[in-house]
């Protein structure tokens, strides 16, 4: 029967205490108290940004024409979104038609810039879907460029799978996440560029 006993005679104890002190002196790191942590700071990373592009800028300013609104753009281009096949950045026939209309509108409003935003479905790795989104937005940019839109008015960005249009994992929902959005961002100096 073993027990851990802490009862030792006083003399032995004194001796022990001395040897402990010596030992601990040698082992400076014998009992290292934990450093106290300050509370974590909150990072201020710039002013709040519009999270979702559509409809947040109903009216663009300044503009040469007062019909240069997102609503007007959407009416004219029939839709600001195009859709892609799975893991593909190829522009479908339907996507080309939408982009043709967008290009015509953008040629009519030469002071308006556009952010081309590629999105991807949940069925790839997070990292890959960022690259895929950029590939999709780039395909849109080259198409609009070929349709006479000045490339300096177009910026390419990707949200990967971080901003799904629909959260569900079924195929129908994922189809609507494989998309490219054209978001009007006003004149070149609207954001201080």
């Amino acid at each position, binding site marked *: *029967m073993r027990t851990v006993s802490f009862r030792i005679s006083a003399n032995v104890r004194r001796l022990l205490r001395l040897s402990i002190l010596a030992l601990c002196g040698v082992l400076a*790191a014998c009992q290292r108290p*934990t450093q106290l942590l300050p509370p974590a700071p909150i990072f201020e990373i710039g002013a709040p940004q519009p999270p979702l592009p559509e409809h947040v800028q109903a009216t663009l300013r300044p503009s040469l024409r007062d019909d240069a609104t997102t609503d007007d753009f959407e009416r004219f281009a029939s839709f600001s979104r195009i859709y892609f096949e799975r893991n593909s950045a190829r522009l479908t026939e339907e996507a080309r038609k939408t982009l043709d209309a967008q290009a015509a509108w953008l040629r009519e409003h030469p002071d308006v810039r556009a952010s081309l935003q590629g999105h991807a479905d949940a069925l790839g790795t997070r*990292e890959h879907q960022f690259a895929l989104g950029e590939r999709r937005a780039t395909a849109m940019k080259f198409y609009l460029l070929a349709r006479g839109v000045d490339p300096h008015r177009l910026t390419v960005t990707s949200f990967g799978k971080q901003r799904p249009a629909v959260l569900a994992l079924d195929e129908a929902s994922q189809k609507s996440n494989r998309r490219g959005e054209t978001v009007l961002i006003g004149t070149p100096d609207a954001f201080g560029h």
Partner: protein
Amino acid sequence: MMRSGLRLVLACLSLVGVPATAQGPLHVDITQGEASPLPIAIPEVSSGPMLGAPNAGDIGLALSHIIRDDLLSAGLYRLVTVGERFSVDQEVVFAPFMRAGAQALVIGRAQAADEGRLTYECLLYDVFGGRVEASQKIVVSMAEWRRAAHKCADMVFSVTTGDPGHFDTRLLFVAGDGQPPARSAHLVAADFDGANATALTRGRQLVAMPDFSPDSRRLVFMSYEEMQPKLLVADTRSGQATSLNIPQGVPSAPRFSPDGRSVIFSLARDGDADIYTIDLASGSVRQLTNTAGADTSPSYAPDGMSIVFESDRSGEQQIYVMAADGSRQRRISFGTGAYGSPSWSPRNDMIAYTHIESGQLRVGVMKHNGSGRRIITNGPHDEDPSWALSGRAIAFQRTNAGGSRSMLWITDLTGKAQHPVRTQGSASDPAWSGKRP
């Protein structure tokens, strides 16, 4: 007085006599990730009411429970309960634990110390040898009382496995609120068990793919400004966040190098994504890959000499390894389906990855030469593996079958010990810290 003197002896002796290898009698046998669990008793040791303690009830009992949760989550221990509750100054008799079959016994004694601090004496006994195998006197601020248990569990883990424990660590993740399309997201850091969650960013801008620096003092993450992603490095002490000055394009997947001096990332331009590094001191940028296709998700080997990454240059996402200068690129993943999100284990031996087949995502591990692939999770949608510093556990993101909510989970390398991390709201993009400062 008497006891404290003797305990001090034990503490010192254990530091002299027990190196951090698992050669002692309390060795957990781990072969190919399969372990024969070590029978361990972690009795409750009441501390009684404690001055200055947060309203968590009996801190001693709570700490015993946290140690149990920590160690059992590793899948390497089997809890032996004897059904006894000890008071903080009670002697421990081995016999009942021996009869119950416990080989190891963990006793933690909590006591209030001055200046709002808590001392926790953590002892690991070899029950059959009848001796103290290791001991540690842990001092934490009362506000961080839970860390005392995590540190105690770390000591037990390290003595019994030979690997550093991963319990006194933080998890970094992206917390999402609300439903699409107006979803906001912010960065959160929490203890590895989900406790003490703190928001690190605020505002409505999108943040994604955070990573800790090796010393856990800095973060790197993607943050959107004017709808364009930037890479930010933030210092957790000063609260300073700096945007990395990188070439034009869409950056993503930033990770620190093992020495913390540079950040490796993927940069997409004109439909092609390649891997780059940026030196944080000089700002110099170096391109490591230039093959057509999406080269992304870079992760350094612990020695910094090699990099694992994913690429779809073959037409499908596969995993590749290259030297740190970008030379000697070779594919290491073969087999059905696609492979991505590779992450090199801190033990150097394994690479964790996300496997995609028939629209399903699973987390797997393989040796760093690509052999011995095995899938270790079986949720509806599992991805984004991130290693614990022990190399014995992996945090990952699991999305429910409906796709509406994602959570963080932790698994051992066999996939048998898995548990969710308690977080508020949905959580994604996990990154596990190294040793906490």
